[in-house]
């Protein structure tokens, strides 16, 4: 069934397909014409610097100790988030973020909230097993 020639052809086809898929995706990312503020960009780096993803999820991806924060900004507002960030909780430390860092983090969470809805209740399931919002 698999002669040496066939193995090489299948492997080559798969690799070409994978590379084409990868570079096609890099060149046609899902969101185009992005105008992102400096503050939002900085907020993303603050999020990574304090490893927020270790405990919190975005679109259901991340840690499990804290809540998913995808739409927290739009649902609860900045003051609610700020209270947690600046005081911590029984589980979450107070990271002593300065005002600039807090404001950048809020800008980033606002940006995430504007990108879509992460709540599974907002999806419908089709008969073929796919989902849509």
């Amino acid at each position: 069934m698999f002669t040496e020639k066939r193995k090489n052809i299948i492997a080559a086809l798969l690799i070409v397909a994978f590379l084409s898929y990868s570079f096609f995706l890099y060149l046609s990312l899902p969101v185009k014409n992005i105008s992102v503020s400096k503050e939002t960009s900085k907020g993303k780096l603050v999020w990574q610097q304090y490893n927020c993803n270790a405990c919190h999820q975005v679109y259901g991806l991340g840690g499990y100790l804290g809540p998913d924060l995808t739409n927290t900004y739009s649902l609860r507002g900045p003051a609610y988030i700020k209270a947690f960030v600046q005081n911590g909780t029984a589980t979450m430390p107070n990271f002593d973020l300065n005002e600039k860092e807090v404001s950048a983090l809020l800008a980033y969470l606002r940006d995430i909230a504007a990108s879509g809805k992460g709540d599974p209740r907002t999806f419908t399931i089709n008969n073929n097993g796919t989902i849509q919002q």
Partner: protein
Amino acid sequence: MAPSNSKQEAPSRLFIIAALVLLGTGMFWGVTGGLQYLIPGFLKSYLPFQKIRPLHVSSVVFWIIFSSTGAVFTYLQQHTGKKIYSRLLIKIQLIIFSLSVIAILISYCAGIFGGREYWEFHPILALPIVAGWILFLINFIKSAGSFRNQPVYVWMWFTGMLFFLFTFLESYLWIFPYFRNNVVNDMTVQWKSYGAMVGSWNMLIYGSSIFLMDKISNSKNYSHSSMAFLLYFIGLFNLMFNWGHHIYTLPTHNYIKHISYAISMTELFILGRIIFNWRASVSAAKKNFHKTAYRFLVAADAWIFLTLLLAIIMSVPGINLYTHGTHITVAHTMGATIGINSFLLLAIAFDILNDTCLSFEPYKKLFNRGYWLANISLFVFWISLIGAGVVKAKWQLSTSQIPFSSMMLQLRPFFIVFFISGVVMMTGFLCIIYPLLKNNVLCYFKFKTTGKIQTHYYSPAA
């Protein structure tokens, strides 16, 4: 298949010894993290969860990387019957990897993170990993010789190594603003890389396991068979294109989700084959259960079935909607990392490190207890995670949602079981690896001073 030669294999064996240390370290951080679920605020001022989690994840991922590297080097020599192209390159790679792991673990304690979900460290520390991996590739290509008429495991090793390098580099595309400036774009590329990266180290592990099966059965029929290559190409196809099942709820391109859904379903063929071969597997297991390495292969076989079944169910978007973001995903990860990868790697470790200068006779009972403790507690651990996931899934889809903290309180009984079974599992694994590690470390230094090849064989299961 050439017989093993400890002298030739000594540097590659060191990878596996270092890996066993990392496994112990990873379990320690895992149990500490589990305690933080039970006692809110435990070690919050010194080692909060955002430090413990990467310490655990990186230790365990490096256990996989170190042991599979050692396995490939050792088995490649046994396969070709020749020495590795450059022992010096192996040593340099080992030094680079070891220093990098130490630096990475220290960086977490110092609060320096890469901040990515889930395997992360500062981008600067990724550079030596890439350099070490390139040395690995050079040594492999030069040692393997021609790729003509090679068994399936050589194909698996080579593709696993290539794809690890590609996906590891891809996972750092976020350093360019073009990729990171939008959360949807960033997460799409991130999960493309991580999804395939897991597949790439699985290729290294499964390839080594097939070599080991050949060695135990003393036949190369399977690794040259059409079925082996068919399963390999299905695995490779999934590695390349099924990563989108991690991001069904992300507002990314729909075609990514449809492709992933369709391709994930091809794994049903693998599942069907496991069920079809069940009786043959059970009778082979009965025949070979006295062999230590084989025992771990049997345990991994059972976990492959459970984990694959769960993975296929979770790959249906309509079901994924319920399981996504819950502990059912963690159960899947733990089943794959501990039940499949770690058991396969322990089978390999026992095969490679079984000849030592000291007797293992006194550890026979300890091994047997450890084996069963690890297996039973892993099952309890897995069930507790699924239980926690079901409760969280109900909460996520409830119309009258209680606060997150109240839902977490409801999960507490599951966390208690999860923690206790985690501690028992760590105890079981330590019972298994302690004698192997102790005798090999002692014999390594003896070997260094005397230069004699080791003679006693370790078969505590016998």
